[in-house]
Structure formats: structure tokens, C-alpha cells
């Protein structure tokens, strides 16, 4: 699972039939600077598009999973690389001070 901030949505006019009704989020992965609040904007990391069935909106902080496990919730094969798994209520993130 990786933390990320939802920065947009994608809609498709045509797509694989398995994607009927799917909702897609554009996510900015959150690194150290974003998790500690030093950077409230976009991170430098490239932005994945993530399947969403939780109803996350722009500005929400979520956890998403990349890889083959993303397809695990589905009964039938689906060509999916990433899926949202949690909308964060709260989090703390504080690396030890003075560590590299």
C-alpha cells in the first residue's frame, strides 16, 4: 500500500468491458515531504491512475495498492494495475530527527 493524494479523476468514453461503472482517480504519491506536511502540493513522483470503489474525492488522502494484487477483489479477470484500498481519516508520520 502506498499513500497518495487524489488530484483528479478520469472518465473513459470507451474501455474494456470489465471497466463498466469503474471510477478512476489520478493520484499524487505522497513521499516524506508530503506526509510530514512540508509540501502540501504535488510530489515529484509520477502520478498513477487508480481504480476506486470507495468514493474518494479530490483532496482526499488514500492508500492504494499496485501490482497483481490489485485485481484480487474481482471475481473475473480484469486488466488492472492499481486500486484504492482506504480513505485515510488520520495519520501521523514523523521520521526520527537527525536521521538521514
Amino acid at each position, binding site marked *: 500500500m*502506498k499513500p497518495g493524494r487524489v488530484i483528479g479523476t478520469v472518465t473513459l468514453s470507451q474501455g474494456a468491458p470489465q471497466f463498466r461503472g469503474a471510477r478512476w482517480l489520478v493520484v499524487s504519491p505522497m513521499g516524506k515531504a508530503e506526509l510530514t506536511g512540508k509540501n502540501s502540493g504535488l510530489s515529484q513522483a509520477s502520478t498513477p491512475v487508480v481504480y476506486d470503489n470507495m468514493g474518494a474525492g479530490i483532496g482526499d488522502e488514500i492508500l492504494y495498492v499496485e501490482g497483481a*494484487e490489485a485485481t484480487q477483489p474481482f471475481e473475473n479477470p480484469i486488466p488492472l494495475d492499481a486500486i484504492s484500498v*482506504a480513505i485515510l481519516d488520520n495519520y501521523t508520520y*514523523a521520521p526520527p530527527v537527525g536521521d538521514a
Partner: protein
Amino acid sequence: MILARIDGYATATIAHPSLKGQKIVLCTPIDEDGRDAGMPFAAVDPMGAGRHSRVFITTDGSWTQDTVHDKTSPIRNQVIGLIDAL
């Protein structure tokens, strides 16, 4: 397997059902000298690792599907060891 340091915790009301009751930690990958080595990530933690403790993490989704008793769980990362010495 990833070496990591627990740097935070997260809570989520809206989440995949397999995350219900699971503790979610935010961790930073570390190298063999304990220095930070990459982007932070989240994992489920059945072991109750303390803040800034060093842990051993599996990214094996099928293992986690077993331990959360949910074959439909997409969760991959799980704390599977607390490190004494590195």
C-alpha cells in the same frame, strides 16, 4: 522482503473490508546501515511495532490474504518481523 522503520500510523473508516480491525503503519524503507532508502509506504501490522522500531515486511499478497482470512484482499504489505539487530 523489505527492511523498514515504523514512522507513523494511519486510520481509515472507509477501506477494503479486509483492513477492518487491522493496524495500519506508515514506514520508511531503510538500507543495511539503517539509512532511509526510498518512498514511505503503508503496511498492516499484526505485531504492534513501536514507533521508530525496525521491522521486516513482506510484499506477498497471497500471504496477507491468508492472515486476514479474505481471498479478495488486495493488501500486500505486512509486518512479519521485529528486528533486534541489523
